[in-house]
């Protein structure tokens, strides 16, 4: 039952003619103020039929109801928001079937405030908010207006359900991800195992590194002792020899050399330069002899030419064209041997491999600060360089051997070139000078000059040896060894028998110093590795402690399935909220998309959905069951196989179909249905609507149903319950 009352006060004066007296009209209900749950109101225009429907809709949040047609909305707005009229009202919808009472009132004409409340069975009033009203009730307020076009509006409910399901899937996805996160934060035996494996692996690495560190330490100590002892002894010996030679030269100078008047000739300066040149060649030949002896060792057959070279009076030989070949012969002999040695010493591949490692190390050193893990190796650049260095070390002795041989062949080339230059540019001038001056004087000058040069050289050498002896003395002290000649010499002899050192007996001072530096660098790197890995080990221990202290999650074993579920729900919510929503919009716009198979399927499902929603249609005097309503093609398929075009349906039929669709709500909300201007429907069509209302009422789903029609003769109210 509906009980209502209202007072509408309207200023009907011409607002622009201010000198005229005001004409205020008051409107109150024309129809009875108590109406049955389903009622039909008929009457002439301006008798308040529509005003009553406007007031009920206004009182039930109609202005905030998006499904109400715009034209009706504007009329409700005018009732409440205009400056020429004001309204007060109250009404109560009382439904005994549902024990429901809804009261709505607007008591002050100058205020827009409307109070809405529910009254329960005990008479207790509870205020109704918009949200609560929407959750419990459904207000349908409609008029016929392009009903064919408005069949599209039937899609609104589907749209709303679809969005709701899409959002729920999305929220479910959020909850699944939360569970996954909880599992991640819980006691995870798999993760614990992983960390334990990492820890064990790291512990092994640390142990191996420590062993390797100790090995390096021993090796470094060995090389330091060998190198420092060797060169301390060697420079002492050289110094001793040089000092003796110096003594001899100084004595010779005093006893034998008599200062003579030198015959100044134009060639004297050239002659002196030539002597200096011969002296340098002498030094080179001695150095060559040293290296050749070192490499050839005890192979007597190859030492013959060396002995010859060492015995040779280089100055005399260089100036004697005929004897010059002795030098050349010896040089070419050794050139052949060592070039041949270079080819056969090791397979070429080995040198290529050594070069490859060397080049790789140099290239990677340029990128050492990059945080990159090298694919296939799983190591960062620093660790990878360390691996390469270990490999490169295997080629170390090979490199030194090659280096020494190359030094010999380079020296041979250099001596040959110098000799060639000497013959072509210097020897002739020197010989002419010798002929011009007496031999005796020339010899005196030569010996004097040579003596001065040699004394000067020897003094420099002795100073150099002294510096070296001091240097190695300090180094020996720094490695906590006593620096006494004989004990050091004895220990050096023992070190030479060491298996490791034996491979390095041919190495030069610079090479050994470099080896010591490299070992020191490697040792430092290894120490840093061990320290870094020890820190990492502490982190693993802390992580393990933390992981073991957590509670296990009940879904720990379902972690993979939950991840799968997360992916599925994410994808599903995307399809529903984006793709399906887009398809629905295309259907509204009557767009055909034959290429998209999913859209075709969706459109087909929507056609079936609409058919189910509308149910039947009265056509040619018979009720026809609808199988599908295709809004894109504008066709209705009915069960007897006929296709009815929407454009062929009368307005009344279409309106009925639309209203039935609206009333066929899928939710359990109680309906308040207000239907205006049904004059376009014939009686039979209208009857299908009334039947639908009765059906809903019997099911307890309709609280109030009001149908309004124009009647040009009189006002009538009829209960349809």
């Amino acid at each position, binding site marked *: 039952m509906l009980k209502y009352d209202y007072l509408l006060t309207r200023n009907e004066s011409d607002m622009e003619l201010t000198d005229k007296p005001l004409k205020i009209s008051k409107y109150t209900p024309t129809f009875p103020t108590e109406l049955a749950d389903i009622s039909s109101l008929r009457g002439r225009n301006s008798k308040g039929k529509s005003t009553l429907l406007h007031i009920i809709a206004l009182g039930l949040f109609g202005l905030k109801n998006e499904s109400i047609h715009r034209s009706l909305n504007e009329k409700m707005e005018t009732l409440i928001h205009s400056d020429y009229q004001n309204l007060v009202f109250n009404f109560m919808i009382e439904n005994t079937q549902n024990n429901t009472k809804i009261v709505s009132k607007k008591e002050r004409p100058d205020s827009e405030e409307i109070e809405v409340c529910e009254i329960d069975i005990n008479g207790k009033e509870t205020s109704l908010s918009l949200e609560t009203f929407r959750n419990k009730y459904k207000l349908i307020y409609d008029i016929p207006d392009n009903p064919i076009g408005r069949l599209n509006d039937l899609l609104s*409910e*589907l749209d709303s*359900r679809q969005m709701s*399901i899409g959002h*729920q*899937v999305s*929220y*479910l996805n959020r*909850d*699944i991800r939360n*569970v996954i996160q909880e599992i991640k934060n819980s006691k995870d035996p798999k993760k614990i195992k992983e960390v334990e494996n990492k820890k064990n692996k790291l512990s092994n690495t640390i142990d191996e590194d420590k062993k390797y560190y100790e090995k390096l330490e021993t090796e470094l100590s060995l090389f330091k002792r060998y190198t420092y002892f060797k060169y301390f002894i060697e420079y002492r010996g050289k110094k001793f020899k040089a000092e003796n030679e110096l003594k001899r030269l100084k004595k010779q100078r005093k006893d034998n050399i008599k200062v003579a008047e030198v015959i100044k000739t134009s060639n004297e300066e050239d002659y002196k330069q030539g002597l200096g040149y011969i002296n340098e060649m002498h030094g080179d030949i001695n150095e060559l002899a040293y290296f050749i002896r070192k490499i050839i060792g005890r192979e007597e057959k190859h030492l013959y030419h060396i002995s010859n070279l060492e015995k040779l009076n280089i100055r005399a030989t260089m100036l004697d064209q005929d004897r010059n070949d002795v030098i050349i012969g010896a040089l070419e002999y050794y050139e052949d041997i060592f070039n041949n040695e270079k080819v056969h010493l090791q397979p070429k591949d080995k040198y290529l491999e050594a070069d490859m490692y060397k080049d790789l190390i140099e290239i990677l050193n340029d990128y050492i600060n990059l945080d990159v893990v090298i694919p296939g190796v799983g190591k960062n650049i620093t660790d990878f360089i360390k691996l390469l260095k270990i490999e490169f070390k295997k080629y170390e002795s090979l490199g030194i051997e090659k280096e020494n041989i190359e030094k010999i062949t380079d020296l041979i080339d250099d001596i040959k070139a110098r000799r060639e230059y000497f013959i072509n540019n210097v020897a002739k001038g020197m010989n002419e000078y010798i002929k011009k001056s007496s031999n005796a004087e020339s010899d005196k000058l030569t010996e004097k000059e040579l003596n001065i040069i040699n004394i000067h050289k020897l003094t420099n050498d002795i100073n150099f040896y002294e510096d070296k002896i001091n240097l190695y003395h300090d180094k020996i002290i720094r490695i906590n060894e006593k620096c006494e000649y004989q004990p050091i010499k004895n220990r050096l002899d023992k070190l030479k028998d060491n298996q490791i050192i034996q491979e390095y007996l041919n190495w030069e001072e610079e090479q050994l110093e470099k080896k010591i530096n490299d070992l020191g660098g490697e040792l430092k790197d290894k120490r840093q590795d061990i320290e870094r890995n020890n820190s990492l080990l502490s982190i693993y221990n802390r992580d393990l402690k933390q992981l073991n202290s957590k509670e296990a999650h009940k*879904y720990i074993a*379902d972690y993979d*399935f*939950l991840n799968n*579920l997360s992916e*599925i*729900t994410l994808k*599903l919510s995307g*399809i529903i909220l984006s793709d*399906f929503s887009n398809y629905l919009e295309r259907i509204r716009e009557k767009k055909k998309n034959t290429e998209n198979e*999913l859209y075709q*399927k*969706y459109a*087909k*499902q929507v056609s*079936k*959905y609409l058919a*189910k*929603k509308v149910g039947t249609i009265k056509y040619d005097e018979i009720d026809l069951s609808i199988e599908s309503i295709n809004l894109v093609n504008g066709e209705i398929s009915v069960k007897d196989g006929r296709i009815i075009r929407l454009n062929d349906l009368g307005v009344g039929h279409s309106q009925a179909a639309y209203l039935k669709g609206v009333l*066929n*709500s*899928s939710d359990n909300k109680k309906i308040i249905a207000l239907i205006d201007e049904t004059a376009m429907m014939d009686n039979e069509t209208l009857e299908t609507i009334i039947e639908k209302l009765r059906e809903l009422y019997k099911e307890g789903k309709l609280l109030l149903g009001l149908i309004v029609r124009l009647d040009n003769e009189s006002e009538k109210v009829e209960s349809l319950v």
Partner: protein
Amino acid sequence: MIKDDDILHFYEGLIDGKLEKRIIELLLKKHKFDEIIEILINENKVGDKNA
């Protein structure tokens, strides 16, 4: 009247995945999210055993 079953039927014609259909079904049956997760996990376990 369009019921939840009709909505389910509507989506059954559109979505291929068994799990996806089951998720919609459970949502339409107004299960709480934690219940849905539990049901799906249990069903997955049973499925694994039967496989």
